[in-house]
Structures are given as C-alpha cells and as structure tokens.
C-alpha cells in the first residue's frame, strides 16, 4: 500500500486525554488543592485517580463508592482508587468511558502518595504504547509546604526529586509561614528547578489553568504554548547547579540540524550511560527533513516517541534541550553530543 498521506491526518497529540500528576511530600496540601481544583469550572469532567482511600483527595461525604475501584463524585467527576497497576486503571477507565459506564471525562488528575517517586509514573505515561493511544502526560505539579518544605528538601532525596522533575511548583501553606520563609523556599526551588514556573496557593487555591494546561495539546500549536511547555529554561551558557542536592539544570542549543539517526544515537548513549541521573529532558530538535521541530521528552532512561510539531514557534530554529540532572554537569552532556554527533553545542 502507498505511503500514508499526512494531509487531513490525525494530530498525534490532540486526541489524547491529558493526565496531570500532582505530587508533593506528606502534608504538602495535595488534598486541599485537589478539592479546590475540582470546584472550578475549568476542572469539570475530570477523572481523579488517588492512591488509596485513606488519602482520598476529596471528603468521604462527597464520595460514593460504587464499584470496587471506581467512584463518582457529586460534581460528576470520576474518582478511581489506585490499588494496583496504574496502566491497568487508566485502561479500565477508558474502557468504561467508551462503554458509557462512566462520565465522558476530559482529563485525568493523578494524585501520588507523598512518598512516591514520580519518575516511574511519568515513565509509564510517556512510554507505554497502550496508554499512549488514549492518554498523554500533560504535566507534573509538585506541591511544597512553606512550613516543612525546606527541611524536607534538605533531608530527603525524594522531595528534591519531586521538585526537580516538576513542570509547575506550587508553594502551599504560605499563611502559616512568614513571608521570609516563603521567599527562601521559592529561592531554593528556583535553584533546584529553574525551568518550572511556580505559584503560591492561597487557601489551597491556584489558577486552574496554571496547573491544568501545561503540556502541548496539538501539533499545530501556538508559539506561546511551546514556551509555556519548555518553561523558564536557563539561557545558552547558563547552568544552575544546586550543590546540596547535586541537581543541575541547563540548556544545550545546537545551530546545525540533526540527522534523525544521529540524534537517536546521542539519546540512546546518554540514557544507557547515565539514565538514572537524567531526571528530566525536554526540548525541540531540528531534524533534517522535518518542517517543524521534533519534541523530545524523557524521564531517566525512557523517552516519549518523537512527535513533530507543524511549525517552529519562532524564527529561531536551533535545537534546544533542557536537562535536569543529578550529578551530571553540562559539560559531560555537551561532550557526549560533540563526540557522537560531531555537532558542538553552541
């Protein structure tokens, strides 16, 4: 059969249900934030997945336990208690939706347990081919409590990782801490993850669009959406390094376009050598023969299958990759690209 014609074809991003992962340490206010969010019209038709009933994101009074694992909230949202496999829960929910068994939800919010490492959840969402038919990771929102946050970040590697992989950081309980403590926390978070935008929740409330519309939802995308997704990445030669936690954030730019195979080889080598410390990789890559940039998204050793945007968001067609790493410096990654691709970062 002839090659697939791309005209009037499907947008590989647009038809996927967005999944927002809300993470944060114990007591960081995930329950309060989720409750407030579900009251907003922007969050109508949301399916909520929570880890266990004890930690339910909504008051028990509001919950009707209907099937073994799925619950209908009184605002029409669906709540699913995750008892086993996330992949299975998401597929079951999609099947139930398609069969008309549950409401036609338009997004999923997944609340992790406080101690959870969000990376495996993110990996499932970006790399599981069955899930990718129906869902896409929209963003990771990490909550940090202004009272306990600094101590947790100091003492606990998981708390640091939660902040490091975030697309959005929300500082909670600011009313219980002084403005100075809030500022100190904000500065610390900025050092751990300078690319993530942050907001301060007031009474557990944040602008729903700040947390729910983070990812790229179509290939014919507005330039500002690409900027929003990439976040406030450091400029070409900047590198943020947070010594206490060995977390680095840096951006590599490449003036020359990549041959597809060469770029894939670079990513493969990097992931196999240093995958565990590659906390998050996001970027746009100029690939020879493609009209728009190829978007790259990776968590540790797993990468999302490449998707090409319809057009570059600006006249600047340099490849740019934002790395958030643990114990890997900019130079190491830059050298690796130079060695394999013979393309020196700008």
């Amino acid at each position, binding site marked *: 059969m002839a090659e697939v014609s791309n005209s009037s074809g499907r947008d590989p991003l*647009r038809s996927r249900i967005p999944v927002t992962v809300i993470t944060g340490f114990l007591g960081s206010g995930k329950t309060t934030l989720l409750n407030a969010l579900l009251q907003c019209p922007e969050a109508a038709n949301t399916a909520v997945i929570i880890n266990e009933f004890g930690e339910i994101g909504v008051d028990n009074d509001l919950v009707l336990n209907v099937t073994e694992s799925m619950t209908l909230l009184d605002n029409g949202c669906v709540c699913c208690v995750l008892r086993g496999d996330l992949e299975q829960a998401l597929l079951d929910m999609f099947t139930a939706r398609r069969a008309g068994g549950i409401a036609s939800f338009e997004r999923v919010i997944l609340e992790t347990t406080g101690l959870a490492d969000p990376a495996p959840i993110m990996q499932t969402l970006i790399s599981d081919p069955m899930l990718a038919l129906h869902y896409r990771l929209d963003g990771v929102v990490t909550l940090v409590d202004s009272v306990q946050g600094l101590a947790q970040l100091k003492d606990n590697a998981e708390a640091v990782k939660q902040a490091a992989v975030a697309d959005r950081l929300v500082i909670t309980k600011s009313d219980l801490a002084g403005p100075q403590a809030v500022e100190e926390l904000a500065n610390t978070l900025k050092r751990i993850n300078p690319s993530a935008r942050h907001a301060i929740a007031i009474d557990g409330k944040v602008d729903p669009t700040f947390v729910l519309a983070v990812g790229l939802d179509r290939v014919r995308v507005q330039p500002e959406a690409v900027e929003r997704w990439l976040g406030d990445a450091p400029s070409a030669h900047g590198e943020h390094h947070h010594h206490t936690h060995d977390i680095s954030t840096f951006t590599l730019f490449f003036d020359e376009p990549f041959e597809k195979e060469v770029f894939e080889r670079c990513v493969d080598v990097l992931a196999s050598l240093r995958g565990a410390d590659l906390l998050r990789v996001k970027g746009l890559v100029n690939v020879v023969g493609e009209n728009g940039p190829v978007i790259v998204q990776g968590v540790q050793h797993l990468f999302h299958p490449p998707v090409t945007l319809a057009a570059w968001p600006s006249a600047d067609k340099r490849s740019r990759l934002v790395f958030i790493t643990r114990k890997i410096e900019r130079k190491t990654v830059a050298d690796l690209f130079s060695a394999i691709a013979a393309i020196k970062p700008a």
Partner: protein
Amino acid sequence: MSEKMNLSKGSNPADSMIWNFKLLAQDPLNGFGNVGEGINMQIAADGRRILWVAHESAPTNFTGIDVSDPRKPKVITQTQLPHNKMRSNSLDVVGNTMIVAYQTRDVGMTPAGFDIFDITVPEKPKLVSHFDTSGPHSRGVHTLWFVDGEYVHMASGAADFQPRNPKDDQMYMIVDVRNPSKPVEAGRWWAPGTREGDSEPSPWVTEGKFPVGKSGFRCHNTNVYPERPDRAYVGYIDYGAVILDISDKAHPKVVSRWASNPPYPGWAHTALPLFSRDLMVVSHESTKDNGADWPKLVWVLDMRLENNPMPISTLPMPPLETFSKRGGRFGGHNLHENQPGPAAWRSDTIVFSTLFNGGLRAYDLSDPFRPEEIAYFVPGAPPLSRVNAVQINDIFVDDRGIVYTVDRFTGGLYTLEMNF
C-alpha cells in the same frame, strides 16, 4: 448525590458520550429532525454555506440550513413532499444544482425518480426537471450520487425492470444530466440473475445455515470519483461491494465483487475507495433493533489488486453489551464519502462512520491492519425519538473540518468540531 454507576449494564440512552469531538450546536430542524442519508454543502454566490439534507420519511422533502456559523445553524428552506407515501432520503449538490431522490412506499406509485433543482437562490429552489423511474415493479430512487455536474449514479428501479424477487428491485443506473432540463439514461447494471428473463440463476440461497439474499440483491450507494472516472464503487446489499468498469457507461462491466456474506449478515451499503492508500472501506447497514442483526461491520480491504479485494481488518466497534441495550439499531451504516468539490473535507487516513445508537465514530487508518478509534459522539436520546435512543444516520465533513451528523428520527442536525 449522583446516581450509582453500574458498569455491567448498558449505558443510559439519555446520557451523551463524547470524546475528541466538541459539540457546537444541535438543530431539530423545525421539528422535522428525521434526516435520511443525503447531505451535501453548497457554497452560495454570496459566500454562505448551505447544508442540504434529505429527510428519511414524509412529510418533509429537503431542508437547507445556513451553517456559515456552525455554532448557529439556521434553517432557510424546508420543503414538503407531494404525499406521505414517499420520501426523498438522498440528495447531492454540484455548484448551484441539486438533485433529490424520490422513492415511493410501494411499486407503481409516483412520483418516483429524481428532481433537479436550481438552488442559485437557496431560499427559493427552482424545479428544473423531473426524471421518472416509476413503473409496475419500481419504487423509484433510493440513493443517488452526483458530483461531476454531468452524470447521476443511482440505485433505482425502472418501468422496464422486473425483478425476480421484489426485494431485488433497485439496480445501478447512470443518468446523463448534461442537459438538466432533459435527463436521459446512459446505462445500467444489475446483479446477474436478479431480473426476470436473465439467463443466470438467481443468487438467492434460501436453505442452510447461512441463507443469502434475505435482504435482497439490490443497489445502494454508487460512488464515482474524479481519481477514477472509469470506476463505480457500488454497495449492492446482499450482493456485496461491486467495482464496475464504467468507461463505457452504456455497458458497465464487473471488475470485482467482494461479499462478507455468508457467513456475515450482508447488507453492503457504501464502498469508499481510499485511492492514495490502495484501500477500500465497506460499510454494512444495521436494519434491526437491539443488536438483532449484529455484527453489521465496516471492513477495510486491501485493493492493490482491484480484481481481488482482500479484507484485512474491521473498524473496532463499541461494546455490543452496552449498545444492544441502548435502544434502536446498532451497527454500521454511512461513512463520510470524501465527496469531490470545494466544500468537502477529504482524507485517506481518517474515516468517519455512523453506527445508529453507537453514534458517530472517527477512526485512524494509518495502520490499515489495526484501525484505531480516535473519537466518538453519541448524543443522548433526542426528545420524542420512537426508540428512545439516538440513531445517528449520516455524516458530512466540510472543508473547514466542521462535522455535520444527523439523527434518523427526531434529533436533526448536530454540528461538531474535530479534536484530533
């Protein structure tokens, strides 16, 4: 407090189900929301987009709807049939010419055939001529295809056509309308053995585990495209999908035929070629309520050899358990047919299929061995629907990507945006 969910039973027909479509508007068409299987769009001289629909049953003939703003459809023309024992069901539009089918309830009745209208002023359709196919064994025209401004391809009876079985009463007929005031028949073809006097035996098989022909060997959709003006892609109900060589319109010749029955239940409806992919999509119509004729499927065929169509997959259907209990028919029917012309959207990758109470579904055929459902719209039961469920009957997508789908009984028109 919300009602309890029960995942084991069929879903509630009052509930809408929607994924990757956005509903822009619904219009019950002045209370005549029973739309058949003829939808096409006119771009009027003043730039307005007029969607023309034929009705499934009397008393309404056809309706013109201004859908320039798809969020605010506006009925601008609605006409009545001369009597209640007939229907239009099908129409097509080229430029400012519209052709409307007429099918009567019983043989021997009139008017049976089609009318040609000048719709230059959409508010005032002007009758140009009538083409008569009535006869002692004819009910007239069930469906027609008119896309080149020159020929009408249609499923019709004729005064001189006597079928061996009354159910075989529609053949494929080509009518030359280059002079719209004087349409003339240009050619015809029927399944061998179905006409009285044929030398071939009737294809009916009445005995055994898989009888064939219960629904009749008659013509349904008759699609011809500019990519292959020498081919007609014909759905011929229990005779299957037939590709005809019409390079000599007076003498159509069979190139190939593919039928899923037996053992499947037949009722081949639409044969949609996807030329750039060497594929063909064949839908089968469900005609019985509550899943009684399941499975009426939509098949994907490899057409690299047009004389040997090879089925490779079917479009995935929503669960029978749910939809057989939702009310009315559930199964295949119409497809968006990639109509030529400036007002239609065309894709060789994405296929839209209407499934009665299963709603409108969109499928991605990037991998033709594994078609993937990518969107659905199942509106809740429209008020006064006699099966208490929606019966999505037909679909048209315009060049802007706006999707128009219609209910068979009362729901009228739904306008949607694609979200994929």
